[in-house]
């Protein structure tokens, strides 16, 4: 009788332990949108540096994707590289190298797009990060934030960004912004409003040296 009880207790303990096994909630998911429109392609070298930096900070279990922003960005085809780093650190390092090579290849052969569909890219990012089921989600937008939609594209869609951090990187000033800075400020304010009304947090980092502090958050 005592033996049976002991066996039952042991099995129960094992089940409880197995049940307790869970994914660590502090895994990170990062989705980076790279603007490839017009003259902004000249900034892609910097984007490459940002990507490399992010790769160096990510750990096994984290997810990372880089996608281009072009005429219609709400598409998996625009994802340049994506990865979920494996549990084994050695494999994760290999994945990082492969990822870097893919991005390098893309930057070398990139062609400027005619339009800039940032909202579509954001929607794609939300979808991908939600599927990745990571603990902390960050969307990085490497763009001047000037959205230029092709006729017929509907992007007046509220963004569901609850639990997401959105960071705008290297938001360059356009020639028109220099003439009237209000355009630049309005552009930033518009995106901030869209993100915050969707439940997300908004941050702008133009000095890429500060990216380290952002990535630690």
């Amino acid at each position, binding site marked *: 009788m005592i033996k049976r009880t002991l066996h039952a207790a042991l099995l129960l303990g094992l089940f409880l332990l197995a049940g307790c096994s869970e994914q660590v909630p502090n895994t990170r998911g990062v989705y980076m949108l790279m603007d490839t429109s017009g003259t902004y392609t000249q900034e892609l070298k910097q984007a490459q540096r940002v990507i490399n930096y992010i790769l160096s900070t990510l750990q096994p279990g984290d997810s990372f994707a880089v996608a281009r922003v072009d005429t219609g960005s709400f598409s998996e085809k625009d994802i340049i590289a994506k990865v979920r780093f494996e549990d084994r*650190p050695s494999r994760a390092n290999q994945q990082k190298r492969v990822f870097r090579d893919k991005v390098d290849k893309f930057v070398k052969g990139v062609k400027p797009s005619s339009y800039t569909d940032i909202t579509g890219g954001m929607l794609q990012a939300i979808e991908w990060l939600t599927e990745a089921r990571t603990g902390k989600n960050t969307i990085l937008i490497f763009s001047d934030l000037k959205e230029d939609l092709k006729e017929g594209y509907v992007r007046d869609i509220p963004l569901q960004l609850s639990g997401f951090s959105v960071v705008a990187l290297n938001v360059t000033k356009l020639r028109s912004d220099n003439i009237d800075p209000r355009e630049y400020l309005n552009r930033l304010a518009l995106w901030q409003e869209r993100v915050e009304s969707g439940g997300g947090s908004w941050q702008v980092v133009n000095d890429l040296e500060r990216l380290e502090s952002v990535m630690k958050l």
Partner: protein
Amino acid sequence: MSFSDLMFSGNPVLSGFVWFVVLSAALYIARVHAHKAIKLASLTVHNAFRLSARSVMMAIDRLANRNKEVLLNQGRLEAERIIEREFDRVDAIVRRDLAEYPALHRELSEEVVKLDEDYQRSIEVPPSPPGWVKAVEAVAKIPSTKGDPMVGNVLEDIHQSLIKANTKATEEYRQSSHKRHQHLTRMMPHWRKIQHQLNQVDKNVTSLLERSTTIDRHMEEYESIMKKTDRAERMLSSSSLTQFFISLFVLAIAVGGAVINFHLIARPMSEMVGGTSAIMGFQINNIAALVIILVELAMGLFLMESLRITRLFPVIGALNDKTRIRMVWTFFSILLFLALVEAGLAFMREILMEEDAATRALLRDEGSAQMVQNSYLWITTAAQMGLGFILPFALMFVAIPLETFVHSLRTVFGVLGIVVLRIVAWMLRILGNIANYTGTTLIHIYDLLIFAPLGIERLVKSIRAQSDKKEDDVDAVNYGGAA
């Protein structure tokens, strides 16, 4: 009910006065019963605290007795263990040395015989005078004849012969003396050997005497423990507290070693079990590393137990020697295997760190920077592997301070328990006294509140006493006059 409801008129002073008079009167009427009630209540609380304090004091006595019993019992077991070991050592000495005693005796006898033989050979034997000396004497007694050359020749020949004989005898004597000296020289190593053997015997006997002195001392302590003397208790208690702090210190060092060990293997464990899953909030690679260290500790404990160095598990100690030795080898093999695994993991850790550094350098410097290969890197790798291999065996010895800690913990808890109970008893006594004096104080405060009726009472009593006295005086005068 508001304050205005209590007022009889618009004048608050008047209302207050009326209330004061009414309450004073009411309190005065209830004074005796109120005093009794207060006294009784304070006495009840006082007695309750006093009884509780007494119970606690009794518990202290019981705990102290129990502590003493446990302490003496532990001390007795320890003393028995030490005496047993001392007897084992004496037994070993006696077995080793007395077993060799017949051989030693034989050797000594042989040496003595050899010495005796050499001595006999070295005895000086005076050379015997030649046989013809008597003939010479006879010739010498022949009356000398002057001018007889024959006699002179004979005497000359005899003289020459005597010189030759003397020279020969001297030579022989020298040779025999040389031989005797050679015998005496040969005796030297025998003497030295005998001296060495006797020194060895002396050393063994001295060692035995020292052991016997130690045993005597331990036996005295043992007898003192068996007699349950206060001295023995004090000695054991002091020793136990010292042991507690020493073992605590050593355990803290061991914990430091375990932490280093943990950091050595936690990271490479993620290569085996992954580093993203978690159980109850703890990463699974950390748990796996911790489990390995705990298993090593357990194996170390069992190994020390099987070697009978510690006695934490009587079941292992009570096993027969054959099974026990098998267990020793089993535990040692598992420990060795785990140590090898740890050394491998430590090596893996170094590889992972290098790979991480290379990847980081590649990513941050956009691939232009090359990793500088440090030629001394093998030192850290070897050090890590060495630590990974050594630490499991080092942690094995935690069993010794752990045993001491567990045993002395009982004494420390007992002492602490007594201290806590003494504080509780003291507090209970203080509270009881406070309750008692609070009752007295409340009675005085009560009387202070009704000072006016009490003053009137005293006044009335005084007037009544004076009138009674006057009446008594009048009666006395009247009775005196009548008489």
